[in-house]
């Protein structure tokens, strides 16, 4: 077994880190406080290849894989988990078109999305719930050769920014009487499609999240992604493999942020005439965070090695997502505990790490959903 990254991946991490330290780190706290999504930075990331990291070069991407995508997200999340969430969500829309789109759809959409000229999104969740895919209220009806979509999507990341959004709608029932879902590519500017309420989140604030309203939204049959009635497959595949991988990678960035900040504070802060790093209570919390980071890293990158090898990885990613997102919350709490009164000041990012960690728990499926997936695998 070889647990090391390739030289190319190491160089990629180094170059991404340079970009993040120069362009993201200095502004991360301001963006969080103002809940500002820096689209201009996204465009720069697009020019550098981040927006289409796993898209083949023939469609304008960098032609790398999901491991490299995770490296990028981890590095961005080290300083701004919200910005990483923005990019992560863009990747969901891109991956859906790449993995389920026809050749015409790939040629039409991927070059602009991979280069960051356009922003993508994927919207499945409805007010009735995200994981209850069998109870979709959004409908798609074929009228005079057009699909007419009606309904409301909620908790949609990139809701107010995306120019290309994948939405799911109920388009019929299958042989067993269950809802049959279809995924559609809906472009911004469609008169029947508009963002609704923008949510005011306490965590992952840089990433815009809100409602999407489909009101007699007409799209042509060429907008169907992955085939009529295959929307559930599209949604589940992308959320379980690309979404959970993204949340795991973002959690790695947050865990590293907690660890690095804990170490720095422990070395600088003096109590009883000595740095608090000499106190075992502090050492234990640093050790716990270090172990959490390393374990999350191994779970995440191992699952992504499977993904890049085109092997099944849904259970592995559920484990990685469950462990890493929960670990962030614990690590962020430890970080705040170690900082004492300083931990509650917004002058430090400690509170942001905790808020971002908590906001990451339900994204791409709650911890309980992850445990159901893992348990089902263990009990099979």
């Amino acid at each position, binding site marked *: 077994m070889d647990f090391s990254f390739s030289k190319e991946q190491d*160089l990629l991490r180094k*170059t991404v880190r340079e970009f993040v330290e120069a362009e993201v780190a200095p502004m991360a706290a301001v963006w969080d406080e103002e809940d500002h999504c820096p689209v201009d930075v996204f465009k720069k990331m697009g020019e550098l*290849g*981040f927006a289409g990291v796993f898209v083949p070069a023939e469609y304008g991407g960098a032609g790398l894989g999901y491991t490299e995508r995770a490296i990028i997200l981890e590095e961005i999340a080290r300083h701004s988990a919200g910005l990483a969430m923005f990019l992560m969500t863009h990747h969901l829309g891109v991956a859906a078109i790449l993995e389920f789109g026809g050749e015409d759809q790939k040629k039409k959409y991927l070059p602009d999305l991979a280069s960051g000229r356009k922003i993508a999104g994927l919207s499945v969740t409805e007010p009735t719930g995200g994981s209850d895919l069998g109870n979709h209220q959004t409908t798609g009806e074929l009228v005079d050769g057009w699909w007419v979509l009606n309904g409301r999507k909620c908790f949609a990341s990139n809701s107010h920014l995306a120019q290309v959004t994948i939405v799911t709608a109920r388009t019929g029932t299958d042989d067993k009487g269950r809802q049959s879902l279809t995924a559609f590519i809906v472009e911004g500017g469609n008169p029947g499609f508009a963002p609704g309420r923008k949510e005011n989140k306490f965590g992952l604030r840089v990433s815009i999240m809100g409602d999407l309203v489909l009101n007699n939204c007409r799209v042509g049959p060429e907008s169907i992604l992955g085939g009529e009635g295959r929307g559930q497959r599209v949604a589940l595949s992308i959320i379980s493999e690309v979404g959970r991988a993204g949340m795991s990678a973002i959690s790695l960035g947050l865990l590293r942020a907690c660890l690095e900040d804990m170490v720095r504070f422990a070395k600088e802060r003096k109590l009883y005439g000595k740095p608090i790093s000499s106190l075992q209570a502090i050492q234990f919390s640093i050790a716990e965070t270090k172990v959490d980071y390393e374990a999350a890293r191994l779970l995440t990158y191992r699952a992504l090695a499977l993904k890049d090898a085109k092997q099944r990885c849904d259970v592995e990613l559920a484990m990685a997502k469950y462990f890493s997102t929960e670990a962030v919350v614990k690590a962020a709490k430890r970080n705040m505990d170690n900082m004492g009164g300083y931990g509650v000041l917004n002058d430090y990012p400690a509170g942001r790490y905790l808020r971002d960690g908590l906001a990451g728990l339900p994204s791409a499926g709650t911890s309980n959903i992850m445990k159901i997936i893992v348990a089902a695998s263990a009990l099979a």
Partner: protein
Amino acid sequence: MNPMKIAVCIKPVPSPDHYHQVGIDPETKTLIRQGTPTVINPLDKNALEAALQIREKHGGVVAVVSMAPPFAEENLREALAMGADEAYLLSDRAFAGSDTLATSMVLAAAVKKLGPVDLVLTGNESADGGTAQVSAQLGEWLGYPHLMHACGLEVMEEGLIRVDTARENCRVVYRVKLPAVVSVVRTINRPRFTSLMGVIAAGKKPLTVWSCEDLPVDRCFLGLEGSPTKAGDIYQPDLSRRCELLDVPPEEIAGAILQKIRAAGLQL
């Protein structure tokens, strides 16, 4: 205008994140950098950026050259990812401990071996040694005109460049016939970020390693033994601080402080 061949000399220096790991060899008075992660000397990145901008405007080839241990291949790959076309690593145990004169001699030999080079660019100084001697010495070895502190660089016509150099209160502008050696300062440009496409392309670009045997250099003038520079002493200054309470009446505090300052060696 014919495409230009530009050589950019780059040096791996300890990463600022790991300065605490850098020590000083008490015998040789040289920096102990082993095991310390390195980065491309920041000003050398400005030099590379300047070279890339010239190539983008006028065409040509940008070659990066570094005299360093084998680990510097990583730094050269980074330069290739940034956009350089070819890389040359000058690596040999015989080079270890070379001072600036020996280093510039080896670099000059490599530049000559590259064939006709129009322009040699370097950073003005390195972030570790900081002698700012190599570029001028390189110019002397090559027999090219050389300029330091370049904050502007423009190709005027075939074989002629304009170089703006930064002075304390002004700029001095030179017109320089090529070939020439120019060392640049930070304000000349902002080095570009490396793209993922650049990282991928770097793996396919040529990186050549030359040892002492590959270059026409005299071993007698190489390494620690062959270097005329002998550091007299290098030490880490004591930067510890202490607090002293002056237990004197308020009207005497100013005088007491002055007394302490003078006692510390500052003549006020």
